[in-house]
C-alpha cells in the first residue's frame, strides 16, 4: 500500500469513528438509543492505528468502550447503529447494545462490560489460532484499570508461558471512571509486565501512523515468533466515562489536560498529515463526505427499522 493510500485509510477510520460518536452525541438526548454509551472520542488513533496493522482474519476483543473498535475493524455500519437503537437489524438484534458489541464476520469477536473479563477469552482465542495452525493474530483491547484485576496477570502469565500469538493493547487514559491511575496502581504498567518476558512498547503519541508503525512491528513480531506483545498507549478521554457530555467541571481532572491533548487531536493530526503529503482538500472532503453519508444512511435505516419481536427474548440462549 502506498503511504498516501495508507494515510487515507487511517483518516477514513479516524474520521468515521469521530463522526459516528458525534452523531451519537447528537441523537442521544432524543432517548432513542436506550443503551449506556462509553464513547471513544480521543481514542481514535490507538484503535485505528492498531486495527490498520491487522488483517481481516485477525481477531479483536474489546470492552464496553468499543464503538471505535467496531468501526476500525470494519464492522457493518448499518448493524452498528441498529444495535444502538436496539433494533432487530442490529448486530445482535438489540440484545447486546453498546456495551456488548461484536462483529464476528469482520473479526471483532466479542466484548465484555465486566472490566478485564474479555482478556482471558482473547488468550483462549490465541491458543485456538495456534492449535489450528491458523496464520492469524489476536488483539485484545483494554483500559489501564483492567490491569488491576487479577485475571489480567493470570492472562499475561498464561499467554507468555504458552507463547501465544496475542497483542495486548492497553489503552491508558489514566482514568477508571473518575479515579486517577495514581490512586489505583502502585506500579507503572510497562515496567510491571516486562518480567513476564513479554515485548513491551509504550507511547503517548496521538499520531495514527506512528501507532500503525508500532503496531505493525508488533504484529510482525508476533507472526514471526509466535509470542505475545504488549502495547501500552496513552490517550485522553475527552468526555465523561459513560454518556455524551464533557465533565471537566466536576474537578476530578482539569481542562488544561484536554487543551494539551486536543492540540494533538487524532482527527486534526491526520487531516494535516494528508494535506502535508499532498492530498488535496477536495480529496479529503470526499473521504469525509462518504463517511458522513454512510453514517447518515445507517442512522436513518436504524431509526426506521423494527424492533425484535418479543419472542426473540427466548432465542439464542442455547445453540
Amino acid at each position, binding site marked *: 500500500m502506498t503511504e498516501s493510500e495508507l494515510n487515507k485509510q487511517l483518516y477514513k477510520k479516524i474520521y468515521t469513528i469521530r463522526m459516528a460518536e458525534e452523531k451519537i452525541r447528537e441523537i442521544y438526548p432524543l432517548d432513542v438509543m436506550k443503551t449506556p454509551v462509553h464513547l471513544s472520542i480521543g481514542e481514535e488513533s490507538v484503535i485505528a492505528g492498531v486495527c490498520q496493522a491487522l488483517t481481516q482474519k485477525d481477531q479483536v476483543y474489546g470492552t464496553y468502550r468499543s464503538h471505535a473498535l467496531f468501526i476500525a475493524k470494519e464492522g457493518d455500519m448499518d448493524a452498528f447503529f441498529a444495535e444502538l437503537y436496539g433494533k432487530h437489524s442490529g448486530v445482535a438484534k438489540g*440484545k447486546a447494545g453498546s456495551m*456488548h458489541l461484536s462483529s464476528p464476520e469482520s473479526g471483532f469477536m466479542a466484548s465484555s462490560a465486566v*472490566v478485564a473479563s474479555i482478556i482471558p477469552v482473547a488468550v483462549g482465542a490465541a491458543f485456538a489460532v495456534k492449535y489450528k495452525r491458523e496464520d492469524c493474530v489476536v488483539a485484545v483491547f483494554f483500559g489501564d484499570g483492567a490491569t488491576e*484485576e487479577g485475571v489480567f496477570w493470570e492472562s499475561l502469565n498464561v499467554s507468555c508461558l504458552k507463547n501465544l500469538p496475542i497483542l495486548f493493547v492497553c489503552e491508558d487514559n489514566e482514568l477508571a471512571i473518575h479515579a486517577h491511575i495514581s*490512586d489505583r496502581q502502585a506500579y507503572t504498567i510497562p515496567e510491571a509486565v516486562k518480567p513476564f518476558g513479554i515485548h513491551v512498547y509504550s507511547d503517548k503519541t496521538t499520531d495514527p501512523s506512528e501507532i500503525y508503525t508500532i503496531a505493525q512491528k508488533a504484529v510482525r513480531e508476533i507472526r514471526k515468533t509466535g509470542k505475545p506483545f504488549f502495547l501500552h498507549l496513552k490517550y485522553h478521554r475527552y468526555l465523561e466515562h459513560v*454518556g455524551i457530555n464533557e465533565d471537566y467541571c466536576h474537578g476530578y481532572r482539569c481542562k488544561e489536560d484536554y487543551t494539551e491533548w486536543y492540540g494533538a487531536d487524532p482527527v486534526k493530526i491526520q487531516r494535516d498529515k494528508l494535506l502535508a503529503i499532498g492530498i488535496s482538500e477536495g480529496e479529503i472532503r470526499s473521504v469525509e463526505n462518504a463517511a458522513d453519508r454512510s453514517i447518515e444512511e445507517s442512522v436513518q435505516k436504524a431509526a426506521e427499522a423494527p424492533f425484535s419481536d418479543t419472542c426473540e427474548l427466548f432465542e439464542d440462549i442455547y445453540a
Partner: protein
Amino acid sequence: MITITYREAINQALVQEMERDPAVFVYGLDVADHKRIFGTTAGLVEKFGPGRCFITPLAEDCMTGFGLGAAINGLRPVHIHIRVDFMMLAMNQISNMLSSCRYMSGGKLKIPMVIRAIIGRGWGQACQHSKSMHSVFAHIPGVKVVLPTTPRDAKGLLVSAIRDNNPVIVLEHRWLYDISGEVPETDYTIPIGKADIVRKGKDITVIAVSWMNVEAVKAADILQQKQGIEVEIVDPRTICPLDEEAIISSVKKTGHCIIADYDWLFCGFSAEIAALVSEHCFQEIKSPVKRLGFAHTPCPTTRPLENKFYPNAVDIIRIIEDKLDLAPTDLSGEEFYSHENKFKGPF
C-alpha cells in the same frame, strides 16, 4: 417522622453508624468520586476523611478478602459495588471464605462485614449489569442477605447490618433510590429476619422481593378498585434468615400464594418460597404457588425485550385473575411505573 428518599436513607445510615462507631469504614470503587454511588455515600469522605471512606483499585476479589481481614480484626467494613454482577468476581471469597471463616475458627472469629450492591434493572444495562443474585448468596450458609424496599427499611436494615457480627449482603434496587417514604427521626433499627406485611388482605398473598413490592402494591391497588380483591403483600426484606412464620401464616389465611421474585426462577428464592409454602400450608393452600421472576434468559439490552425480561404489576394482576377466576381487569387508563420518563440513561 421525616420524609426522605431511599438514597438519603442509606446515606443517613452510613453517616450515623460511622459517627457512632469509629470501627465502621466504607470502601469500594466510586465511593468517593463526585457521583458517590448515586449519592448514597455523599459527604462521607468530607466528614470522616479518606481513611474511613476510600476508593480502591479494580480488584473485587482482593477487596472482599480485605474486608474479611479487617472484620476479624474488629473493624466493621462496608464494601460497596455499583453492580451486583461484579461480586461474581468475589464469589470465592464469599462462598469459601466469608461464609465459613467463623465456623472454621470454632467460633473464635467474628465477621462484622457488610457488602452493599445495586441490583436489577437500570436502563438498557444488558446481561452483565442487571442481575440480582440474592438466591445464590442465600444458598450459602454463613452469610445473611437483605433486600430493603422502603426508605425506612433501607436505613433500619443497613444499620442492623452494620451492627451485625456476621457478613451481611445488602442488595438495593437502582429504581428504589428515588422513592420517598417516612423514616423515624430517632435512632432505630429494623431487625434482620423479620418480614413486613406491606398490605393486609384476605384473598391472596403476594410475597414480593425488593422492587417487586412497588409492582405488587400497584397491582393490589388496581385489583382492589376494579375487582374488590384484597391482596396481602409480604415483603420478606431479609432472604436469609427468612421470616418463614410471617409467610406461612399469611398463606394459611388467604389460601393462595404468588411469589414475585426479582431473580431467575430455577433453583431460586421463588422455588424456596414455593417449597416452604407447599410444605407448611399443605392443608390450607387452594392453588399451587405461582412463581414470577426474570425470564430464563440473559438480560437483553433493547427495551421491548428488557420489558419482557423483567416481571411487573400487570403480570401480577394476570396471575391473580387466573388464580381467583376473575374476569380480565380493565387496565385502560392505568398508569404503571415506567422509567421511560423518570429514569433516563445512561446508568
